[in-house]
């Protein structure tokens, strides 16, 4: 009895001293190395299972022995259908060909609406080039530490280390609303065009309009920034390089636990310039209140609302397409200057980039209902 009481006191003392120590681990089993003795690859901790637990979690140690029988072997066609990646060594890159000129007209048709002419980007859509890639690559040491300093140029030509990523991107990600819709030849043509506007040479050769890109030529592309990334992850030592890199905190910085007088003088402050970025949707509020119901036609059952959502919101929900955005008071005030009858007529007959009735086959009165709904949202 006395012994165990004594033990409790002792362990309490130990606990108390551990709690004040700065190196106390929350979990006794936390380790910086895996069971094979290698450091954790990201420079962090791992929590091996000890006494049926990993950190705070109990585990069923009989559940991880394998011998499960679920599922089946995929067929060759199934693997082929889903194995759509393209690797730097050409794995997954199919045969095909396309010229810069073919790429140019495809670009006009399928890409320019978002990425603008010659891939200059805009309205939030990324630029695909910013001049000669070899020159642009040299800007990667730029730092915007003063307001008038130029930043680094990070576009495909100046930044990406491997061309295979471009082919993969176009084939499985573009055009954004319809990925996987381009043929392999079209992807080669678009790749050729994008390489040419970045002024990238293949085997010392400039890509003029009738340059035809194919698989063999594609694999000869050397990107200007191919050595721009650390750690080196290629080859049999790639994983070890990453392990070494992330276990050296100096590579990405680490703080110190200073407690008193950590710098001289008063703190130097950086503040938000102007009102900063505060265009938030919905606007910030922490009020506990009922949502405000919009009056009349703007309510949930307003005539025209459903039609709007089904047929018109694609263009009018944002101003990205150049259409007046629903709810944008300024934009609609400009539209209504011409009077509501003119707005009805425009909606029925088409205006600017909008086809008659927005490309729908709605009856006239339904179109007017939608106009009324859209106008009501901007009041």
């Amino acid at each position, binding site marked *: 009895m006395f012994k165990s009481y004594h033990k409790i006191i002792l362990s309490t003392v130990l606990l108390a001293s551990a709690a004040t120590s700065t190196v*106390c*681990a*929350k*979990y006794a089993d936390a380790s910086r190395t*895996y069971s094979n003795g290698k450091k*954790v*690859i*990201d*420079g*962090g901790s791992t*929590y091996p299972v000890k006494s049926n637990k990993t950190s*705070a979690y109990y585990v069923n140690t009989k559940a*991880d022995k394998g*011998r*499960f029988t*679920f*599922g*089946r*072997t*995929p067929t060759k066609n199934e*693997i082929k259908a*889903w*194995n*759509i*990646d393209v*690797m730097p060594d050409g794995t997954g890159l199919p045969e095909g060909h396309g010229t810069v000129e073919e790429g140019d007209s495809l670009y006009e048709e399928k890409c320019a609406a*978002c990425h603008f002419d010659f891939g200059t980007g805009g309205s939030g859509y990324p630029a695909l080039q910013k001049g000669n890639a070899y020159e642009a690559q040299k800007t*990667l040491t730029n730092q*915007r530490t003063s307001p008038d300093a130029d930043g680094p140029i990070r576009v495909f030509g100046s930044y990406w280390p491997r061309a295979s*990523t471009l082919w993969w*991107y176009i084939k*499985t*990600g573009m055009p954004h609303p319809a990925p996987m819709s381009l043929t392999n030849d079209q992807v080669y043509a678009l790749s050729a065009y994008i390489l040419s506007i970045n002024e990238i040479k293949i085997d010392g050769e400039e890509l003029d309009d009738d340059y035809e890109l194919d698989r063999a030529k594609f694999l000869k592309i050397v990107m200007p920034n191919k050595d*721009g*990334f*650390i750690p080196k992850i*290629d080859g049999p030592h*790639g*994983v070890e390089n990453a*392990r070494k890199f*992330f276990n050296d905190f*100096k*590579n990405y*910085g*680490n*703080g110190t636990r200073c*407690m*008193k007088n*950590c*710098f001289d003088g008063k703190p*130097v*402050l*950086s503040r938000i310039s102007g*009102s*900063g*970025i505060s265009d938030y*949707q919905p606007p910030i509020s*922490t009020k506990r*209140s009922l*949502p405000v119901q919009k009056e009349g036609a703007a309510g949930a059952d307003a005539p025209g609302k459903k039609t709007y959502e089904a047929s018109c919101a694609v263009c009018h929900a944002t101003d990205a397409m150049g259409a007046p955005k629903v709810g944008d008071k300024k934009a609609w005030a400009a539209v209504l200057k011409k009077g509501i009858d003119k707005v009805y007529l425009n909606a029925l007959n088409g205006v600017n980039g909008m086809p008659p009735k927005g490309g729908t086959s709605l009856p006239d009165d339904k179109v007017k209902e939608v106009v009324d709904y859209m106008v009501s949202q901007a009041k």
Partner: protein
Amino acid sequence: MTKISKASQMTAEQSDRRDFFRKTAAYSVSALAAASVMAPVKINAEDDPAIVEEKKWGTTFGYPVTHNLYGQPSPYEHNVTRRYTKLLSSGNYYASIAMCPIHESMGIITPNGLFFNREHGGVAEIDPNEHRLMIHGLVEKPLVLTMDELKKYPSVSRIHFIECPANGGPEWRGPQFPSIQFAKGMMSCAEWTGVYIKDILKDLGLKKEALWMLAEGVDNAHMGRTVPIDKVLDDAMIVWGQNGEALRPEQGYPIRLLVPGWEGNLCVKWLGRLEFGSEPWYAKEETSKYTALKPSGKAIQHFYANEVNSVITSPCPEKPWTDLKKGDLVEIEGLAWSGMGTIEGVDLSFDGGKNWVEASLKGLVLPKAWTRFSLMYKYEGKPLLLSSRARDDAGHIQPTVKHEREVMGVESVYHRNGIFTWEVTEKGEVNNVQVLS
């Protein structure tokens, strides 16, 4: 029998009272004290109407159990939502991000409807009956599983945060957002349920040359990322559960990859395929986006873990101290997290990081999970510079903004974990500032 008759007696009495009340109420509705039905009193100015007035919810039926079979938050909580801004979208709202209202978060679990979501091609709505998981490449036995088959594997549940490595990224060159939701809301934390990939691999015969795994989604973006085999064999999971229910579509329903603590974009949503290989893939967004450019002109690629980080959530711009009076005892509260391990402790500073005191941790302290910290403070109405500095059990400590800029410059975009500071004004308003000392 006695009991029943007693009960019916009481009911009769109550209905008498109600009749009395109705009659009285007809004469002076608002002047009635609820607790004094039998003896109505005149209400005085200092009496709180919230207490002394009858409320409709106390005198009528609520809604029946047949209503709202999938429960909804109170309509009074409608301002607690994700938020977005045009400035953080790639041209449209299909490739964009919606921020988590972390100022309204309680504890360490984010409700599924408030979990931040970042998409590259919109939210796919997948029919789980027509979805498969394929595992192939450098394995002896490639495998295809239906969702029902996948869920037959022994499940594990783990609480982990997911954070976009761009969280705080717009503020490398100085503070930009007068809001915690936008300054630090590209993260959330949930309990995830799924299966360890290493448990499935036991039967598949992983080949020795396999050093990397490609994870790929089947949505519009076909998002892909390369994961080193070390992580796959440590704690990477395929998850289908989020806080006790199926993943939300925004989180990759029916399944996503979870690589605890690592960049959110590695946790590939709408997961369809895992391929094992001997070389990294250079996947679409892998080098085009998720790399951190240093002043040397070299960029860190495969920057896996979100480093140790913290932010004070109360006070904050959305929840200022403008309603406090001098002498009030108030809790300073916040969130700390590390993708590299478990939070060891958090220090707080009232003078922008010149002097520090240790805060208390509270609640559950788990690896790679949000951790709450707390410090009791007697409000004096003086201006403050409130900073927090977390450290983890792998030996990482949040750097000062100055130190972080010395190492990483200001063009990294991703992985910013420098010490975060709020300026509290004399009036108790809260501003987003950075200390450069």
